[in-house]
């Protein structure tokens, strides 16, 4: 479209490519190094500075991880919370977005006002904790799913999307004898597949990555999700938290760098696997259009 043939323009273009490509490489290089390191031996990790393909492929770190009871259990917890939690999110978000998309619904603006105000002001950590405690959710998996059941932001995007759907289909369905539940189930949801997929993935990623909810609401170690265990394996074994050890000159680091890397990889790879699907939707502009409005 626009061409710049002057020398300065060409130099700028080259520099632009180089800088952006460097930036892109820098964002993914840490992952590549971590994944490479997780398949290497500890000895190689210590002797070679940086590598992308380890000389000797070793599965020791992964064998260690998957023989570790608490890690395997936390993986199970994370999978469970991610699946059930996402279902909870989608149920609450969809059922609330549909009536709010109906302009003629009495009280709609008041409810929308409540939702929007909650984005601006909140009770904060302690009062929310007290509500979770008061409802008897503390130390249950529900505490990881219910307090964040609806993201107000997502709700409004879904509502706007529903609002844009053609009303004729809805009227036709109603003439055929569908009630509101039927309209939502038979017309709206099938028409909203892309947005259903997008938000399911976004919610699921949120559950998989969540650390704070478990920190606040879960006390029993056997109910900890992967992110909490990951934190323990990497940070606490580093003895950064137990500062006394750091000052002890005889302190030797446990030789578990590969195990740490493997644990990080286990925490990241599921996200990287769904990423192409996520990306398909946000580059398609499903989200962009909605974000703008």
């Amino acid at each position: 479209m626009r061409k710049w043939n002057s020398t300065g323009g060409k130099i700028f273009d080259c520099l632009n490519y180089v800088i952006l490509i460097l930036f892109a490489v820098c964002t993914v290089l840490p992952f590549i190094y971590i994944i490479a390191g997780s398949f290497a031996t500890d000895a190689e990790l210590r002797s070679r500075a940086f590598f992308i393909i380890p000389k000797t492929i070793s599965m020791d770190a992964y064998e260690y991880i998957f023989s570790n009871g608490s890690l395997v259990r936390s993986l199970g917890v994370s999978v469970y919370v991610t699946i059930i939690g996402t279902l909870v999110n989608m149920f609450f978000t969809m059922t609330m977005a549909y009536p709010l998309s109906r302009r003629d619904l009495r009280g709609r603006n008041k409810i929308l006002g409540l939702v929007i105000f909650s984005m601006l002001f909140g009770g904060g950590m302690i009062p929310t904790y007290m509500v979770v405690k008061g409802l008897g959710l503390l130390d249950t998996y529900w505490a990881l799913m219910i307090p964040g059941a609806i993201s107000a932001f997502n709700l409004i995007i879904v509502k706007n999307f529903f609002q844009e759907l053609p009303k004729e289909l809805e009227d036709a369905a109603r003439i055929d004898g569908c009630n509101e539940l039927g309209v939502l189930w038979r017309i709206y949801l099938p028409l909203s597949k892309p947005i259903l997929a997008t938000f399911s993935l976004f919610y699921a990623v949120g559950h998989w990555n969540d650390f704070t909810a478990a920190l606040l609401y879960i006390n029993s170690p056997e109910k900890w999700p992967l992110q909490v265990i990951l934190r323990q394996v990497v940070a606490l074994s580093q003895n950064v938290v137990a500062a006394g050890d750091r000052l002890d000159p005889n302190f030797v680091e446990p030789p578990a760098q590969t195990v740490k890397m493997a644990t990080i990889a286990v925490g990241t790879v599921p996200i990287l696997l769904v990423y192409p699907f996520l990306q398909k939707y946000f580059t398609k502009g499903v989200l962009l259009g909605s974000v703008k409005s």
Partner: protein
Amino acid sequence: MKDASSSLEAMSEPALIVKPNKRSALFQSLKRDKWLYLLVAPGLLYFLLFKYLPMWGVLIAFQDYQPFLGFWHSEWVGLDNFKFFFQSPDFLRLFKNTLILSFLNLVLVFPLPIIVALMLNELKNALVKRGIQTLIYVPHFISMVVVTSMTYVFFTTSGGYINEIVKNVTGHTIPFLTDPQWFRPLIIIQTVWQTTGWSTIIILAALTGVNAELYEAAMMDGAGRWRQLWHITLPAIRSTIVILLILKLGHFLDNGFEHIYLMSNSLNRSVADVFDTYVYYIGLTSGQFSFATAVGLFKSIISIILVLGANKLAKKFGEEGLY
């Protein structure tokens, strides 16, 4: 139309003839839209329980809340918690730490996505552009725990990749993770790494809305690349930037609890303690619920003032604003 239906209703139900007022209209719409109200109920209940009940719970900031007495029997103490907070030596330290991080965030992190988006916009090869975008969006989806864990693995003094380089160059290692001096730079580097790519999306969306004819016209007039950037591109995305800035100011005091919590340790707490983490330590670790709630409320009120103020300012300068 509504009147017609309500009078129809009044005829069929004698009880309502007496009071054909608002109440019967409400009853009407409840009856007509009963499925819709049934559908909205779970979500509404969620907002009332988990968003509005805590807002009411904020009142314990004005109490000396005792768990065994409960909300109804705890003593009201007025503004004592706030007074105590403002007079405690922690206040200035927290305020300073929070403000410095927020300020660094605003100055160093906020402009980067704009610059990167403008650079991406200049790329002619669509394939390369897509490839770069694909890669730089990835970190947004990575958990904070993984981000900090990777930082630990890279920066640790015992065999961390970065520290190996430092050792080769200077002969000694740097305790990046525990040295208070390095806390803020690490936080900023992590934030830049995680958020820059994703934040370009909204700027790029605004850039696609720029009318191509404007560039052609400018070219006819002999405007070079920089003049086009200055006179066409930047004005076109100005309102987007202003809205992002207002949103950013609303979260000015949010340093990200999870991020700061995961990066802080007993050796760098002097610079790492911010409002968000302080509320956690005081409230949930030491059990001073009322005091912690007061600290949180103080932060929320300042945030609201900042959003409204920024919005007003934006309107004054002729921008649209949010509200």
